[in-house]
Structures are given as structure tokens and as C-alpha cells.
């Protein structure tokens, strides 16, 4: 028995050694490194298909959220860790542009409607709206709320759970949504009303959606700040389309990329019909390309919110974010 245990231990150690089993990617064709955030997802077969048709092997490197990604790109500006980046969103775009992290490239497939930069250093790839989600049967007979104002109505007392804008990206989007709706001077007033109406603040989406929200079966609150796309994965819920804030995710060819030509092809690939059609189910966001049909379940339960203007100018966000979050903090948590 003991001998067996020792043998097993040795075996586990040997088999487990990750250094010994490391594999080198096959050296054929060229390689492009895509730097992105944790939420990036793409079907393996699609990448393989792209590899066959273009000869480019895409190596994906993920780290953290959109903020961590942008910061990483800025810090490694002098010696970039990749060729093309995906996932800098509207909140962080102006930071990336000011720091000159990306080089100009106009993809033939770029959707001009979502252009953020005159010199085309960033190209929109997908749209992700943050909206209040409602668990329809969790309302227990109360009619569904529609607008921001409704949420402060005593009818919905103790029903809403939101994420802190200090620690969560949907939380920040929701705060920005209220700034957009009520203006620089009115948003604090609105949050005072929300607070009086028993809004609950938690630190992250996981907790808000999986633990506090009644739509996922565990929590007690039927209203939660989540994404326009969430209802596609959670039955009996829907997004309140008048409470949305639009976040656009961009891709760009990194300044000083070792393989800039390859990077451009990868960017084109991300705008291609095939990639765009899979964006909803892979990343829970909406395609930017016109004429790409949403999956059937989405068309029913998670259509794209209509208002394309539901977003603040990137420079405003960049300039005021810290002070808004600080004001929010002392208002809601002070």
C-alpha cells in the first residue's frame, strides 16, 4: 500500500509536470498575437478555418477586464506584447487613443456609424448594452417598470440591485446611463431617490446576477443591472430597453506590432460576416456589421436596444469618471 502510494505520487508528479509537456505551436505560416480581455471567446473551428484560408495562426492572450487590458497596452507601449488588440471599450477608448497605443487602419468592412476616431485607429467590433433586467414573474403582480424614473417609484421599493461603479463595469455603465438621462446636475438627485427606494449595491455582476437577482432562482430582487443580452440565457427575464447604456468594443492594430499586416487581416476577420454572426453566442454582445441576423432565441428575448445614441462622448467619460464615481460613493455609501 505504501509503496503504491509512493509510486502514485511519483507518477502524478511526473505526469503533472507542465514544463515537460509544453508544446510548441507548429511553425508553419505566420503568427499574429491577439491581446484581449477575459470575456473574449471564439469558436476554435472558426479560428482554424481562418488559419487555413489566410495562413495566419492567431494566438490569443487574455488578461483581466477592459480596464486591465487598456492599462496593459499603455504600459507595454514601448515593447508591445501583441499585434492586434480587441476589447478596449467606449469607457477606455479615449485613454488608449491619447496614449497612441494604436496605429491607423481603415478596414473595408468597418461600420462608419460607430466610428470613434478620425484617423481610424480604433474600429468598432461589437455592441454591448447595459440595461436593467426584470424577472417578470418575480414582480408579483406589480406592472413592469419602464424608465429610470420608474425605478425610484415606491412601487418598486427594495427590488433593484446594482453593481458599484467603482468595482464593476456594468455598474459604471449604469451610473453613466443615469448621468446621460438626468444630466450633470440631476443624476445625484436621482440616486438619492434610488437610495431612499432601497437600492442594493454589490461589488460585482456575478453577485448581483447570480445571487441577488430572483431571475436566476436564488435571490429576492426582481430588478438587476445586467446586459441587454442576458435574457437570452435566462428564461422569464427581459431587459428594460429604456434604461440602456451603450458600450462599444473596439479592435485596433497595435503601434509597433511585429506583424502589422497580419494584424490587419485578423481585424478584417473579426468584422467578417462569419465572425460577426457568432459574436452573440460567443460573447453575449451584438454584431456591428449591418445585416447580420441575430440568433433566433435572441430575436425573441434579447433584441438590440433601439437607441444608438445612448452613450456619452468618450472624452467626457474619461475626464469625469473618477469624480463621478467619488461623488457617487459619498452619496450612496457615505
Amino acid at each position, binding site marked *: 500500500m505504501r509503496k503504491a502510494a509512493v509510486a502514485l505520487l511519483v507518477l502524478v508528479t511526473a505526469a503533472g509536470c507542465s514544463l515537460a509537456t509544453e508544446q510548441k505551436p507548429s511553425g508553419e505560416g505566420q503568427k499574429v498575437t491577439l491581446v484581449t480581455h477575459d470575456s473574449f471567446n471564439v469558436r476554435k473551428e472558426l479560428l482554424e478555418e481562418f488559419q487555413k484560408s489566410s495562413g495566419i495562426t492567431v494566438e*490569443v492572450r487574455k488578461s483581466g477586464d477592459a480596464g486591465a487590458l487598456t492599462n496593459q497596452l499603455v504600459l507595454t507601449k514601448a515593447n508591445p506584447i501583441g499585434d492586434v488588440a480587441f476589447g478596449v471599450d467606449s469607457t477606455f477608448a479615449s485613454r488608449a487613443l491619447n496614449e497612441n497605443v494604436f496605429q491607423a487602419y481603415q478596414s473595408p468592412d468597418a461600420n462608419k456609424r460607430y466610428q470613434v476616431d478620425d484617423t481610424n485607429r480604433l474600429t468598432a467590433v461589437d455592441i454591448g448594452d447595459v440595461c436593467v433586467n426584470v424577472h417578470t414573474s418575480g414582480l408579483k403582480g406589480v406592472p413592469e417598470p419602464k424608465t429610470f424614473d420608474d425605478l425610484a417609484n415606491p412601487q418598486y421599493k427594495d427590488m433593484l440591485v446594482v453593481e458599484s461603479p467603482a468595482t464593476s463595469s456594468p455598474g459604471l455603465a449604469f451610473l453613466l446611463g443615469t448621468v446621460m438621462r438626468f444630466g450633470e446636475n440631476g443624476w445625484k438627485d436621482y440616486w438619492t431617490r434610488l437610495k431612499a427606494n432601497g437600492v442594493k449595491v454589490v461589488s460585482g455582476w456575478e453577485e448581483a446576477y447570480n445571487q441577488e437577482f430572483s431571475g436566476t432562482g436564488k435571490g429576492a430582487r426582481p430588478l438587476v443591472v445586467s446586459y441587454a443580452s442576458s435574457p437570452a440565457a435566462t428564461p422569464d427575464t427581459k431587459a428594460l430597453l429604456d434604461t440602456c447604456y451603450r458600450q462599444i468594443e473596439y479592435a485596433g492594430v497595435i503601434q509597433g506590432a511585429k506583424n502589422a499586416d497580419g494584424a490587419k487581416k485578423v481585424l478584417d476577420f473579426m468584422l467578417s460576416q462569419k465572425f460577426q454572426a457568432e459574436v452573440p453566442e460567443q460573447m453575449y454582445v451584438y454584431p456591428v456589421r449591418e445585416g447580420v441576423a441575430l440568433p433566433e432565441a435572441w430575436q425573441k428575448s434579447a433584441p438590440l436596444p433601439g437607441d444608438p445614441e445612448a452613450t456619452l462622448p468618450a472624452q467626457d467619460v474619461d475626464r469625469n469618471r473618477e469624480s463621478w464615481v467619488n461623488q457617487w460613493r459619498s452619496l450612496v455609501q457615505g
Partner: protein
Amino acid sequence: MALVPLAFLTLFFAWPVVAIIGLGVRVQLFDTLTSADTWSLVGFTLGQAAASTVVAIVAGMPLAFLLARCRLPGRGLIQAIVLVPFVLPTVVVGLAFRGLMPGGGVWSIVLANAFFNVAVVARTVSGLWASIDRRAEDAARALGATRLRAFTSVTLPALTPAIGSAAAVVFLFCSTSFGVVLILGGAEYRTLETEIYLRTVQLFDLPGAAALSILQLAAVVTALVIGAVARKRRQAALKLSGSKETARRPVGGEWVVVGVAYGVIALLLTPIVHLISQSSLAGFRALSSTGHDNSLEVTGFRAALNSMGTATDATVIALILGVLSSVALTRLGKTAEFVDVAMMLPLGVSAVTVGFGYLITLDALPGDLRTSPLLVPLAQAIVVTPLIIRILLPVLRSIDERLRQAAGTLGASPWRVWLEVDVPLAARSLVTAAAFGYVVALGEFGATSFLARPDAPTLPIAIGRLISRPGELNNQMAYAACTLLVVVTVAVAVLIERFRTTVEEF
């Protein structure tokens, strides 16, 4: 001998950290340092860490007694259970505590931190306790001391170095705990660690982050120096012996302590059982897949294998570094304390700081380590090494120098002395240290999440990812993966326990 670990530390810790802090050092530093907000952050950080440390020690001591001194059935399993909290991802434990204590608040932070760290106390203290010759205690008893008196005046002083060691580690872990504070603090309670993350990642306020990192370092160094001074006064040679003679069936009042220990185990099991109860058959089946809508790039089982492989590498590296440092520390004179404190520092510095530090420094090394899969076990080893030192050092220092001198006088070379005196006496602790290190590496999240590549996630990373995407299957799969992590941990611990008994028979 201390040079190898120190060089490693410099390359993979000091250099990156200094570089990233250096980027942010501006005049503005003083504004941050003098603001009242900053000092309330420091106060809360240290306060919650101190409270968590006290709770962990109070809960860990009966366990240490049980593990070191009692020969009871199921001891191996208990040893394994105690390790489990350490591998569980903080996200999931945070959510479990949230479920068990819906009110949240400071107490849930303290308890969750203590939950993670009881193992440190139990393991570190029982390592020394099991090696202490029981006869001194028996002599005190024979001379008429009560059991309690014998404990407080004979055993406790002998254990102080290990308790001090454990307290230092727990304090560091708690003052840099991130996930727990984030989730249970409800975005209301903040620590230096969460604020550094916020400033670095969300606000790009590198000067602010640098100022806070410097404060964090200063606080950690102060705590370590106080710990080192306290330990030094207590350090004395003990008569160590093999474990066989020190463990026996508990008698009389000892049963009370055993009862308390079982109570602590029950408390430890509560969140674990809560987690396991959230997993489902569907979740387990899903482990062989990549989750709802391919949330993962590899299957759950593949992630588990990655975890084990990386943890093995990290443990091997950390054992080499840890043993070298510990041996050097017992031989060094005045510089020993300095080296000791230096090796502990990585536990007290934010993973974000180190992670971003890597980005701006490691490209200067050949082969651009920034993007290498090698970096994950290296970074884990940095975290594991101090733990190994903390377990080995009290034992090595307790070895009576006269034993070594005697061996030397009899003609043994220094190497031979080490092999014949130190190794047999420390072997048990070495295995303990290895098991503990392996488990810590298995559960490491902070640094790993920064460095792991998407095609090779570890299990904790996979869990974090599953739980952050919608879809009920992902949720169930995440909890099933937690259960898998628990099972792997228990299996490794039991296996190593068997291995350890084998070692002792040599």
C-alpha cells in the same frame, strides 16, 4: 546559499515591483500620503487583518493539538480537510459566506479571512508541536503542574516560534486579501489592496497606486520586523524527537480540546458543504465539456490537469528555494533577519502591482518571459516559498546546535552533518511544507489570473470565468469544479500523508 533565492526574488519580485512603483512616483505622492481617506484605509486594512489573525490562531491551536498530539482514527482526513479552504477560489468562498451571512459587513470579512488561514496556523504549529519531546511536559505534570499549567509554562513557550511564524503569514495574507473584501465588503469596505487594484486597473491613477503600494510595503515590513523581533526573543534550542512517541490517545481534559477542534472542523466544513451542495450532476457532467456556449477554451478536467501540473512545478521550485533559504537562515548571523523579512515580502504586496510590474520589466530578459507559460509556476513559487520557509525554519532552528557540533567532532563533513542531523529531524516538516505549498499553488488566483494563458487556464481561473458568464449550466459547472478542487486537494493531502509515514520509517 542565500544568494540563489535572493537572486530569484530580485528578478521576479523586487525588480518588477520597484519598476511599477517607480513609474508612479510623483510629487503628488505626498497628497495621497497625507489625506485622511488614505489613513482610514490603512487603519481598516491593518485592523481587519489583525482581527482575522487572532481568530485564525484561536481556531487553529486546538486543531494543531489534535494533529500533533492525538492518535485518533481519521486524523489523515482531518489533516486533509483543514487544507481545503486554501484551494478554494476567493470568489466562490466570498459568495458562500454571502449566502451564509446575508448581512455581510466587517465580521463576515474577518471570518472569511480566518476561514482561509486556519490551515496556516494548524499546519505550521502542529509541525513543531509534533516534534517537541513530550517528556518535558510529563515531567512538569509529575512535579504537580495541572495540564493547563504544563501547557502554558512548558509547551506554549516552546511553540511560540511557530505561532509567531504562522501569525506573520496569516497577517500578510489577510492584509492583502482581495476577493473576500471585494465581495463581502459590498463595495463599502475598502482595503489598501482593493484600492490599489481600483487605482491601477480602473482609474489609471499610477501615482495614487504607487503611493498606496509604498504604504502597503511599509506596513508589511513593520509587521514583519515586529514579528521577527518577537520570535527572536523566544528562539531556543528544543529537544526534538520523532512523531511516534509524541502522539497518543488523548486523556482527561484533553478531550475538551479535542471537542473544540472538532467544533472548528465543523465550522470549516459549513461553507465547504454549502459550496458542494450548489453543484449538481449536470454540472459534473459538464466538466468534461467547455461549458455553456463554450465559456472555456478547454474542458473542466483539462483545467484540473493544468492546475496540477503548474502546482507541481511551482512546488518543486519553491521547495528548492525554500530549503536553500531556510538552511542559509539557520547559518547566517546578523543578516539572517534581513533575508528572512525579504523572502516574506511577496505575501504582502498586491498581485496587481507584481503583475503589471512583470509587463514592464520581464521583456528585458531573454525569450520575453512576459508571454511565456513558464511565468505562472514562477510567480506561484514566489508566493509558496515564504510558506515553506515558515514551516521549515522553526524546526531547523530548534535543532540543538550541539548535535551538529557533536557530529562535526566525530568527523562528519558539513554536508554529512546536514544529511544525518538536520534532514531526519526536519523530514516530516519538509513533507508538510511540500503538501501545503502544493495546495497553495493549486488554489493561487491573484497572480495566476494575470499570467495564465487562455488555452491553459488553471481550475480556479476556469471557475472564475464560468461564474462570470450567464447560463445556469456555467454556474453549476463552476460549483462542480469547486467540488473537484476539494476532491483533488483531499486526495493529494491523504496521499502525501501516507508518503510521510513511509518517509518516517526509513
